Structure formats: structure tokens, C-alpha cells
């Protein structure tokens, strides 16, 4: 692809209307954050039992999806699949914007967001959280450089090296995000090395689903041709990733089901957990994994753009449900302090912890998603991220190994 084949999207009324519409959600998110900080977190659904609530579900989802969104670029630069090359720039842009959206939620949900500077100046290097601060900020820098190498003709020869660094960085980053939970010995649902690779696979799936939706929407709204060749490649890849996530979920639960000590938490998630059980089976497994798999691989729906879009949307909904079950379900199950005993106290020991998402939390989470979308929209408006055409005859399949 030549440099001229990329163009900014058109400005004008529709652009500003869309940006304004998304901007309203960003403002609502900021308002929600202000409300939570002003009154304190008691106005949310969070408590001393459910410590991380809905904002964390959105934030971790976005952060995981951010690293996954970079995959398309990695496939082109690192693994040399030329058909994906025209998509690499958008892939890099989404990686940055989704991360910004996720981090904004995370920061605004802190007890003291005014002390962000403290988080940047005081470090405890034994904390995976502290490492993640470096990994997240570094990721944005690395991807920005990668984009520069791709977009500046003189720098094109470094694209592969920059892409390689970004690819390794994103693997470490998602390992770090998974380890936030994997390193927690205290809780039955966490404390597993499996969470790090599982988060990596989840990022592949969620990131690609978002990428497909953004790609389809931007080409439809900017009246640019998007051919079946590239879209069908992406949707087949999404199917593989959905299957891989399912595999990790099965292994995770099978392992736990084998360990007697873990039967309590497994019974909770898989059988008796009420909303968490329903979210797991109905939304995560059925709607978020099996149905999209069927839609993507069915000969008729798999060739329909509408159904591919719906399948991608279902993957995102299923992913949010999976995050909800991991993060909030994992906290709802009580700490196992006295094995073999029924525990009661005024501090809710021993019981299933109640939690219902509150409006400010949901608004903040949606605000973060909106921020990511708004930043993407502005990005494709001011810089040349999107190819003018992704019609089938523009896709270079010559470099393909059959």
C-alpha cells in the first residue's frame, strides 16, 4: 500500500454530530466520577466486601481489549501477513485509545484520584500494580513509535522491529493485567498462574471483536469500500480466538473441580451463584461464545455482514460478563479463613457478599468506552489511519504462504 492510499475521514456535520453524541457519554462519565469522589464511594454499589466494582469490569475489559486490538498490526508486521497490512494503523490507534479509556476509568475510580502524581512518583516494585503503571504508559509510547514507523515513509524500514517490540510488550502487559488477579493468594477464585495466559487469549478475542466493529462502522459511515476478503479473514480469526478462550475457561474450571478445597467457589460460580451463575452460563458461554462461534462458522450467517457484526457484539457482551464473573463473582465468594466452619460476623464474614451495580458506576464505565471511541474518531479524522479502499482487489495476498 502506498502512503496516498490512506486518508483522513471527512469532517463536517455528521462527524461533529457523532463526536458530540459520544462526547455526551464522556461528560456523563466525568460527572459520575465527580459525584462518586465528592460523596465518597458509599454512593456506589461498592463496599468493604465488593472492593472493585463495575468500573473495574469496564476498565480491565478495555485494557485487555487494548492489547488485543494491536494483534492485527502484529500479524502484519511481525508475522508478515501482507493482507492485514492496510489495517495495521487502525489497529495501533485502537490499542492506544482503548487503553486510555480503560486507564481513565481506573484512575477516576481511585479513592484519591487527585493523588495520581503520587502513583507516578512513589513505587513499590514488588507490586504488579506498580509494574503495570510502567507497562501501560510504556505500551502507549511503544505503539506510538510503531505507528510513526508505519506512517512516515522514511521510517518504514523500522516497522518490523518496532512491531516486534510492541508485540512482546503487549504480551507482557496482558500477563501483568492477568497477574493482578493471579497473584492474589487470599481469594479462592484467583491465585492461579492460568489467569495470565487466559487474559492474553481473552485480549485476542475481545480486541479483535472491537476492531471488527470499529472497522465495519467507520467504512460504512465514511462510504468507503470494505471487501469480503479482509472481513472474512478477520471473522475466521475471531472464531479461533473464541474457541481458545473457551479452552482456557474449561481448563480453569476443570482444575478447580479436581481440587476439593476449590469445590465451594466452583459450586458458587457454576451452580448456586444466582446472577453470577446466570452470567457465566447464559451470557459468557452461550451468548458470548457458542452463539458467535455458530454464527461465524455457519455457511450462511458467516457470510453476512450483519451477522458478523452481531457475533462481534456478542463477543464483547460475553467478555464483559466474563470480567464481571471473574472480578465481582470472585469477590462475592467469601474468604476461606476457617475451613470446615460456618462463619458469621457483623463484617459479613462467611456469607456471599451482595453487590448491585449503581448508576454512577455504570455511567463511569460507559464513559470510559465513550472516551476510547471519541479518541479513535478524532484520530481517524486528523491523521491518515484508514485506507481509502479495502475492496477485495486492494488486498495484497501475493505474499501469502498457501
Amino acid at each position, binding site marked *: 500500500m502506498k502512503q496516498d492510499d490512506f486518508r483522513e475521514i471527512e469532517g463536517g456535520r455528521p462527524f461533529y454530530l457523532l463526536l458530540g453524541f459520544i462526547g455526551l457519554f464522556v461528560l456523563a462519565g466525568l460527572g459520575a466520577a465527580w459525584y462518586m469522589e465528592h460523596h465518597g464511594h*458509599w454512593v456506589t454499589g461498592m463496599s468493604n466486601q465488593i472492593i472493585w466494582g463495575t468500573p473495574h469490569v469496564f476498565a480491565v475489559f478495555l485494557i485487555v481489549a487494548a492489547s488485543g486490538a494491536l494483534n492485527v498490526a502484529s500479524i502484519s508486521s511481525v508475522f508478515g501477513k501482507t493482507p492485514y497490512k492496510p489495517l495495521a494503523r487502525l489497529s495501533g490507534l485502537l490499542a492506544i485509545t482503548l487503553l486510555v479509556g480503560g486507564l481513565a476509568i481506573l484512575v477516576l475510580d481511585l479513592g484519591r484520584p487527585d493523588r495520581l502524581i503520587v502513583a507516578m512518583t512513589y*513505587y513499590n516494585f*514488588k*507490586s504488579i500494580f506498580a509494574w503495570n503503571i510502567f507497562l501501560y504508559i510504556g505500551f502507549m509510547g511503544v505503539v506510538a513509535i510503531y505507528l510513526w514507523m508505519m506512517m512516515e515513509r522514511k521510517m518504514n524500514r523500522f516497522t518490523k522491529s518496532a512491531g516486534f517490540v510492541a508485540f512482546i510488550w503487549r504480551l507482557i502487559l496482558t500477563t501483568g493485567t492477568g497477574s493482578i488477579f493471579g497473584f492474589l*493468594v*487470599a*481469594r479462592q477464585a484467583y491465585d492461579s498462574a492460568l489467569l495470565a495466559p487466559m487474559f492474553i487469549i481473552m485480549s485476542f478475542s475481545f480486541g479483535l471483536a472491537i476492531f471488527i466493529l470499529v472497522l465495519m462502522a467507520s467504512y460504512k459511515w465514511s462510504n468507503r469500500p470494505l471487501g469480503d476478503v479482509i472481513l472474512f479473514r478477520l471473522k475466521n480469526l475471531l472464531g479461533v480466538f473464541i474457541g481458545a478462550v473457551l479452552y482456557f475457561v474449561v481448563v480453569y474450571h476443570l482444575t478447580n473441580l479436581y481440587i476439593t478445597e476449590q469445590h465451594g467457589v466452583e459450586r458458587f460460580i457454576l451452580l448456586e451463584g444466582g446472577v453470577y451463575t446466570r452470567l457465566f452460563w447464559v451470557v459468557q458461554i452461550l451468548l458470548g461464545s457458542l452463539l458467535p462461534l455458530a454464527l461465524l462458522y455457519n455457511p450462511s450467517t458467516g457470510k453476512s455482514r450483519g451477522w458478523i457484526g452481531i457475533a462481534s457484539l456478542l463477543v464483547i457482551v460475553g467478555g464483559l460478563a466474563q470480567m464481571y464473573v471473574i472480578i465481582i463473582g470472585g469477590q462475592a465468594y467469601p*474468604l476461606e479463613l476457617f475451613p*470446615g466452619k460456618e462463619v458469621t460476623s457483623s463484617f*459479613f464474614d462467611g456469607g456471599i457478599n451482595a453487590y448491585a451495580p449503581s448508576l454512577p458506576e455504570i455511567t463511569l464505565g460507559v464513559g470510559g468506552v465513550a472516551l476510547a471511541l471519541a479518541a479513535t474518531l478524532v484520530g481517524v479524522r486528523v491523521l491518515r489511519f484508514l485506507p481509502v479502499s479495502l475492496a477485495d482487489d486492494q488486498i495484497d495476498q501475493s505474499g501469502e504462504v498457501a
Partner: protein
Amino acid sequence: MTNSRQLQPGALSMSNKSSFDSYRRRFLGGVASTVAGMGVAPGVVLHSVGHAKPAGDAVTGDVRWGMLIDTNKCAAGCDDCVKACDDEHGLTGFDRPETDAQWIRKVTLKDKQTGHTQTLPLLCQHCEKPPCVDVCPTGASFRREDGIVLVDKHICIGCRYCMMACPYKARSFVHETLQDQKPFAPRGKGTVESCTFCVHRVDNDRTPACVEACTAENHNAMVFGDMNDPDSELSRQLKKYNSRQIRADLELNTGVRYRGI
């Protein structure tokens, strides 16, 4: 070094050091006369003085504060330790049990097989290797040389990761704006807090409020002391009786030990 915090250099320059010293002389003079007064005052019995730390000295690792809780002596229905803690630190609460802070709580256990019930107070276990300190991104969670685990609320950003990591659910997040805090127990919205082993009392060679209350009720279920001092009442009891740590499988070497569980 896991923590890059530094003290402000030059905060105490030479010139003000001298006035500092004169202040200290005055202050120590006051203490000395108080101590001298102890010797002559009638009816005063003074057992084994010697460990009292002068206010100007830093705590050291020679001491490790710990506690032994005898669940057989802990009375069902009694929550004097909890009340004493709430009173000591001004944990008034807002009648919102889900979000109100609890530094110490009474827990009732019932054996699923045998039906045997017992009750015990649960508080920060002041681990030697505290998970809350490991995970804290800013180093706000820290362990003092003498084993007391605290939160530096000046650099706590309220991320609550320590609460996720604590196996004992010992920590609370301050969910609302507070006023009229106790001078020795500063606490505020947006930061995490937990039992301090009454560090302000311990530094003045006094016993935590919960232990004092338990003793005042003549239940004597809680003993506080220096685990490193073989002659302390705590060490004597720990040596004599079998005790265990909650979640001993994590090998955190807790400062709080229990008898009868």
C-alpha cells in the same frame, strides 16, 4: 529496597538542631522527673522497667509486637474489644454496615460437622510477610521495623488492591467524608485503613485498647507483647501453650496467634 520514598533532605538543618536538642533536654527532663517521682510515690509498684522507648528514638527490629488470643476465654456476646477500638479511633460509622469501617470484629464459628460453636476477635494479623504490603503500588502499605503493619495515608491513592490481597479481610476503605477524627487516629475519605495495633499507645509503652478492654472485663482472652523478648508475658504463654495462625498455609508468620481453634 522495594520503596523509593525519601525523606526531605535538609528539613532539619544544623541551626535548628540546637533548639531541637534544647527542646529534647527540656522534654526528657520532664520525663526524668516524672520517672523519679514514680520511685518515691507511695503505693506505686514498678515492675521491670527498661524497655520503655524514649519518644525521640526510632523503633527497631529488636522488638516484634504480637498478640495471643485465647478463644476459650473469649466470651460469646461480648464485644468490649470492638467497642474499645471504635472508641479509641473514633470509628463511629454511618449505620451503613456494608461500608462502615471495622478494624476488629467478633466472628462466630460453628463446626459444620460437630456443631461446636466458638467466638473470637479478628483483626489485622500484622504478618511478617504481609500480602497488603507486597501489592501496594505506592508503598503506602508498610511494615514498621517492630512488625506493626500500617497504611501511610499520605501516599495511599485508594486503589484498594491491598483489600483484595489481604487474606483476613482486615482492611476497610473510608467510604465517606469524616470530621472530628481522633488526634492519634487520623483517617479520611478515599484511603484504606486497618488495625494499627494502637501504635500511638504502643509507642508510649502502653497496651492496645482492645486488650485493655478485655482485661478490664476480667476475660483476659488477649495478651499483647514483644514476641522477641523471651521474658515477656506473651512469649511465655506462646511457649507454654499450643497456638496457631489463621491461614497458616500461607506462611505469613502472623503477629496475632490464637489458642483453641
